[in-house]
């Protein structure tokens, strides 16, 4: 262009202008805007009134609640039980310590300038589960044994979901690779495994783990019920994750496989260095989706007699001394689940952005 190019059109400005363009641009839009406004007025103020304005926060018993709004005293009084279940109060420091260590390790891994990150990561992956086992269960280093029947609340939710999530990713990767393998036996075994677990409802898996499995074991041999549930859960979650990972593997262009082969890289190095880093990036949204589902489905352990967060809340809400506050309990449970899930979702979004940095400025 020889002459100066014309300036871009002047931005539309002003609140009234914006309102007219976006909310009242036609009869239909005006109607929708008014209906939306009506629903907002109908719903939001009463909820705020119930949850905050008329709510009772102070006190220590049911009598503190005047009955107008929410009785958050119910939550306040039972908070430690919601978090730790029936874990003996004098032993609860063990749970705090374990999660404190986990958070510290994660923080160390996040800070850029910390040296020896490989070792810290290895300690987290290999060492932490062992440490957590001794802290939670006890039975060594002078720690009293706390049987898993006393575990509960948010603690149990996080343990079950954490184990299932942590085990499902490596298992899912192996199953996905196996399903795409060109060794017929490996492929058949992985396919059958995946389809079997995917075809069975989770409740069935949990019932099998808690009721059926002991029938098949010789008398005298027993496994902990929680352990059985976690193993069943991890296998179930692994099958789902496998299919998500397989989707990622299919998203890697065939040329990448060929280029890696042509360089003479053996199979596992090919997967580890070239294929999986790309496949997992593609699969992140799906993987997080399945992690969120795993986390929320932990509530199902209630049916085999384990008390997770929701189960504990329900149990407490049926306590005759505190009848009538189930709603507050459920709102609290929903809020806790939402915070955890939203946190995971935000973290995955950040991870995706960071891993896709190489795509910026593409030609």
């Amino acid at each position: 262009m020889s002459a100066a190019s014309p300036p871009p059109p002047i931005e539309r400005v002003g609140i009234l202008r914006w309102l007219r363009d976006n909310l009242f641009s036609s009869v239909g839009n005006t109607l929708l805007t008014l209906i939306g406004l009506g629903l907002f007025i109908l719903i939001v103020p009463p909820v705020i009134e119930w949850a905050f304005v008329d709510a009772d926060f102070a006190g220590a018993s049911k009598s503190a609640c005047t009955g107008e709004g929410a009785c958050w005293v119910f939550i306040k009084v039972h908070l430690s039980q919601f978090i730790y279940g029936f874990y003996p109060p004098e032993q609860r420091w063990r749970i705090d310590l374990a999660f404190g260590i986990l958070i510290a390790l994660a923080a160390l891994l996040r800070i850029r300038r910390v040296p020896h990150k490989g070792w810290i990561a290895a300690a987290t992956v290999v060492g932490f589960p062992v440490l957590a086992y001794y802290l939670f269960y006890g039975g060594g280093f002078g720690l009293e044994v706390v049987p898993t029947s006393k575990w509960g609340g948010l603690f149990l939710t996080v343990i079950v979901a954490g184990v299932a999530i942590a085990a499902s990713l490596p298992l899912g990767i192996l199953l996905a690779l196996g399903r795409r393998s060109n060794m017929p036996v490996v492929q058949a075994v992985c396919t059958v495994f995946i389809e079997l677990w995917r075809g069975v409802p989770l409740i069935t898996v949990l019932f099998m783990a808690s009721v059926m499995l002991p029938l098949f074991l010789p008398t005298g041999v027993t496994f902990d019920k929680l352990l059985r549930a976690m193993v069943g859960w991890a296998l179930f979650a692994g099958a789902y994750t496998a299919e998500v990972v397989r989707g990622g593997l299919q998203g890697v262009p065939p040329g990448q496989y060929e280029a890696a082969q042509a360089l003479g890289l053996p199979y596992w190095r090919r997967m580890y260095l070239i294929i999986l880093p790309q496949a997992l990036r593609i699969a992140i949204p799906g993987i997080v989706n399945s992690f969120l589902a795993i986390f929320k489905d932990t509530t199902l352990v209630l049916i085999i007699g384990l008390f997770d967060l929701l189960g504990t809340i329900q149990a407490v809400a049926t306590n005759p001394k505190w009848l009538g506050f189930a709603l507050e309990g459920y709102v609290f449970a929903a809020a806790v689940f939402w915070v955890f899930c939203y946190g995971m979702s935000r973290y995955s979004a950040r991870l995706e952005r960071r891993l896709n940095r190489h795509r910026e400025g593409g030609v």
Partner: protein
Amino acid sequence: MTDTGEQQTVRSAVRFEAVSKWFGHFQVLKSIDLDVAPRQRIVVCGPSGSGKSTLIRCVNRLETHQVGRVLVNDMELTEDVRQIERVRREVGMVFQTFNLFPHLTVLENCSLAPVWVSKVPKAEAEALAMEYLERVRIPEKAHQYPGQLSGGQQQRVAIARALTMQPRIMLFDEPTSALDPEMIKEVLDVMVELAQSGMTMLVVTHEMGFAKEVADRVVFMDEGEIVEQADPQTFFSSPTTERAQRFLSQILAH
């Protein structure tokens, strides 16, 4: 070539003996015999679907032949995975679509194989990679990602990546077909230099100028067969078969 006895057969870099291959019921390679001596430069051409890409992909077993024998530096390609990996260490390959690893920088792309295949220490591998990046005249892009490079630059990096394994044979599968016209020359220049350095090369290409300049022999394929092979002079001036004549008139027409 003279045969001087059983132990001292003349060594070939690449040797196809009656190689056939099918995709389903479709025969892509029909009893191919081909012999490439060390330091020879072969250009393979032919209409699309003639099996030329399949042919050179059999050299590093990206495709498996079903009948006949393929020998690379006297190593026969069989089901033996170790043997295949040994062959691949000696054979570099450059693809039509570059196939650089998008999640790694240019330098990491080039130093990856020396580190993970030949167990060269990382610093040494990176020095080696830089050396080859300089040879393809792109050292300043070492710390960028492939997505930030033009097609011609990416293809030169792909050549450097293959060379860092210090292969004895280089395969080129239509290396300039996916490039914009103004980028073809920079890639061909690098390939010409490589040819002059004495590398054994098998090149599938339609760049007849390149063939005339560096090829020792042009192999013309059609419908899975080698129809004609000759030195470029003879092939371009007086092709003997009707199919080669038709092919040449088509590609030289525009």
